[in-house]
């Protein structure tokens, strides 16, 4: 893990806000091309959601997700992540229906990123833009294509446009040692390429001069100038927290204010004193999805309540990676979809948490009979916990709802599609960007490509 360094000088080519997967991938890409890069993160460790925590003595799990959307192979191989310690298990693919389309969207965003739309001296009329791949899905309902809905991408499957949730990145597989190993591998890639990583340091604001983002203010009172600023925070936190409201055009602020969050998730990390028994060991290695009514769960979430039967994925992570549990014991995770950030009757209280935990344990017992008696410890994580720990607005790991108005060329909104934003010099990666929900590291890679193109004229 890179140690916290003091800032040697406060002028860099690129300042990256957030040391998550996208920020670190972008830092590695930019630094490898000779730019001076600083990554700033208020957290004490790199990785963002790529962390592994010891939630009970000897029991480890990744608190926010078991696995992330797959990293495109060319990025994984190019950053040499396996040799830096990120070994990913192959995952059981539920569907590969959307894979070609997802790859086409990634290719489109990368192609757009490598063309500078503001290149001086080019007066040719801009041709009409090709529609984004997959825009035909904007009027289709998910139920027409597939019946199952993962808790992480909950939607009303009967609604037009819900088919776009299928573009959510396919699981990339469990990481040996938990997601923290992936975060560390990315941090190694960035720091070995020459990027500086500064932890425990918040960015307080983004400063503009003559309509261009030119510096960030830091929580220690200093200012860091940069030729390009890349934010990997979510859309609302980037524009509504790091700019004064009167610095941005009112329509822009209003558009960002109406950006809708995705249904939240809750996670229960469970320490088991014994390994559950199943006749077929292979079943224990796979995610167990319990049947639920996604439409009901979606509308319950919109009303601020937890469905009686939310969509659930149960994973015995130690069956694939025994290093997460002591010998003879096991670690299971329960991921529940459609969990409101703020229940209709007020914030999350101890009682509400206890009820949700009881529900999650009952679902675990249903999936793996006999586990109730072997539970020795557990930790529940609800959306406000995610917001506190990761700084994501509303604890929304998806970075915004996957709906027709907020996907493809409309994500996060038309003027901000891809990676460039209406504020010259400011780039957006992370969960709210076009590629955020589609693949891990891809939005950071695309933003780095755009910055290289704009600053150096290199694709």
């Amino acid at each position: 893990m890179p140690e916290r360094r003091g800032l040697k000088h406060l002028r860099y080519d690129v300042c990256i806000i957030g040391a998550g997967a996208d920020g670190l991938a972008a830092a590695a890409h930019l630094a490898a091309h000779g730019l001076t890069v600083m990554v700033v993160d208020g957290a004490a460790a790199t990785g963002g959601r790529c962390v592994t925590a010891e939630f009970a003595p000897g029991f480890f799990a990744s608190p926010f997700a078991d696995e992330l959307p797959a990293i495109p192979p060319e990025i994984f191989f190019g950053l040499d992540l396996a040799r830096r310690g990120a070994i990913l298990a192959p995952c059981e693919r539920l569907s590969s229906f959307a894979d070609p389309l997802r790859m086409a969207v990634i290719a489109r965003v990368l192609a757009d990123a490598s063309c500078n739309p503001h290149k001086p001296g080019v007066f040719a009329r801009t041709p009409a833009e090709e529609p984004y791949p997959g825009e035909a899905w904007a009027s289709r309902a998910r139920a027409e294509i597939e019946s199952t809905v993962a808790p992480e991408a909950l939607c009303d499957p009967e609604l037009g446009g819900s088919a776009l949730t299928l573009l959510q990145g396919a699981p990339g597989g469990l990481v040996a040692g938990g997601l923290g190993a992936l975060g560390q591998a990315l941090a190694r890639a960035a720091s070995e390429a020459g990027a500086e990583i500064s932890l425990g340091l918040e960015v307080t604001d983004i400063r503009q001069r003559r309509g261009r983002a030119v510096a960030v203010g830091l929580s220690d009172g200093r200012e860091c100038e940069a030729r390009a600023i890349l934010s990997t925070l979510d859309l609302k936190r980037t524009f509504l927290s790091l700019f004064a409201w009167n610095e941005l055009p009112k329509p822009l602020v209003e558009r960002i204010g109406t950006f809708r969050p995705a249904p939240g998730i809750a996670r229960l990390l469970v320490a088991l004193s014994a390994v559950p028994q199943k006749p077929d060991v292979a079943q224990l290695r796979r995610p167990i999805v319990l049947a639920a009514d996604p439409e009901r769960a979606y509308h319950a979430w919109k009303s601020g309540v937890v469905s009686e039967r939310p969509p659930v994925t149960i994973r015995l992570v130690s069956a694939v990676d025994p290093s997460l549990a002591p010998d003879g014991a096991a670690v299971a995770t329960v991921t529940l979809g459609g969990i409101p950030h703020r229940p209709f009757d007020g914030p999350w209280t101890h009682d509400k948490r206890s009820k949700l935990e009881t529900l999650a344990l009952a679902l675990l017992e249903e999936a793996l009979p006999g586990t109730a008696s072997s539970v020795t410890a557990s930790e529940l994580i609800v959306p406000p916990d995610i917001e506190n720990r990761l700084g994501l607005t509303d604890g929304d790991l998806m970075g915004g709802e996957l709906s027709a108005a907020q996907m493809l060329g409309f994500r996060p909104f038309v003027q901000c599609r891809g990676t460039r934003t209406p504020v010259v010099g400011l780039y957006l990666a992370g969960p709210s960007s076009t590629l955020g929900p589609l693949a891990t590291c891809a939005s950071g890679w695309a933003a780095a490509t755009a910055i290289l193109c704009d600053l150096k004229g290199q694709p």
Partner: protein
Amino acid sequence: MSLRATPFHARAVEANRLNAWENRGGYTLAQHYGSLAEEVLAARFGAVLADLSWQWRATFSGDAIEAFVARAFTRNGAALEPGLSLEVLWLNDAGGVRGRGHLVRLARDRFLLVSPQEDRDWLFSAAALYGVHCSEQSAAGMLTLIGPTARKILSVAGIEAEPPPCGLVHLTWRGLDITVSRLGLGYELWCDEDSGLIVWDRLMAAGRPFALLPAGQAALETITCESGLLYPAGDFAPSRDGFEAEPTPQRLGLCRLMDRAHAFNGKAGFLAAGRDTVLSGLLLGVETAVPPQTLNHCGMPIGKILSCRYSPSLQGMIGFAILSGSWPSGDIEAGSVRCRIVDLPFLPIGLSPDTSQSAAPGGRDGTGGRPRLT
């Protein structure tokens, strides 16, 4: 030709969901039991159990055994302590590589050779010249257990004895006489033909909480390649003509297995074959395999690609290169394919991410980790 079954064949039949088989050394073996990638990666998360009974095994014993092994093999086995082994080559008279294997000293006057390639006629004829008695042991069962939880599985199964690296121990395991060794990437368990199924069942039961999977030969090849070892059965064709000087150890990047301090068969041919070479790793920026060809830097040949394959762990194509001289920093080309030279192993097996860092490429100029020729 009828194919033989190994002592573990009955269990392989039960586990082989896809009915994918291959022939190796005259035996019918599972190519893969389920997903190849899952089996390869299980060796990095938990452990895999694979059948090695197809390997050729022969014992040599007699009064003149030390003189024979010193002469026949490229490293001096006569200096070994009982219970230890050496990885060796044997060459023909002209210096061509006939075979590669592990030479194990079982007792003061008894050696065992384990090799993926059988060379009975050559070695047995040579042994006869020294009055050394030879016999084959290929009917016995041999399993390999590879992965970070392999040691725990053995302990849970009741095998506490730990053989030294490149060594073996004999023991009685709940009524069965077995041998445990560490000659390859993990542990090898040797047993009688009749007790093969019992050994398999005991290990699978002990490995249940430790993510143990059976692995086929395809996964074993990939794991071996990722670990930086040329897979002996597939990466070169041995010289079978007593006077054919090809392939030389230099051409295969196997100079590290040559002990110049002692006289061995084919030494003159080896010395005449030219400068030593270095076996190195290649990361290839393509999605399909590249055939063996010359490696260039700025149009100048610097070596040759030996073989390459897809690595599920690295999610890309990896290969072996034989480098014959020093080269400047920068990208290397194989035809139109850009490559990067890296240290071997690509990914050490059974080590934590922190320790595998030592195999990572070096500084920002991308030149770190390149082997240096001496």
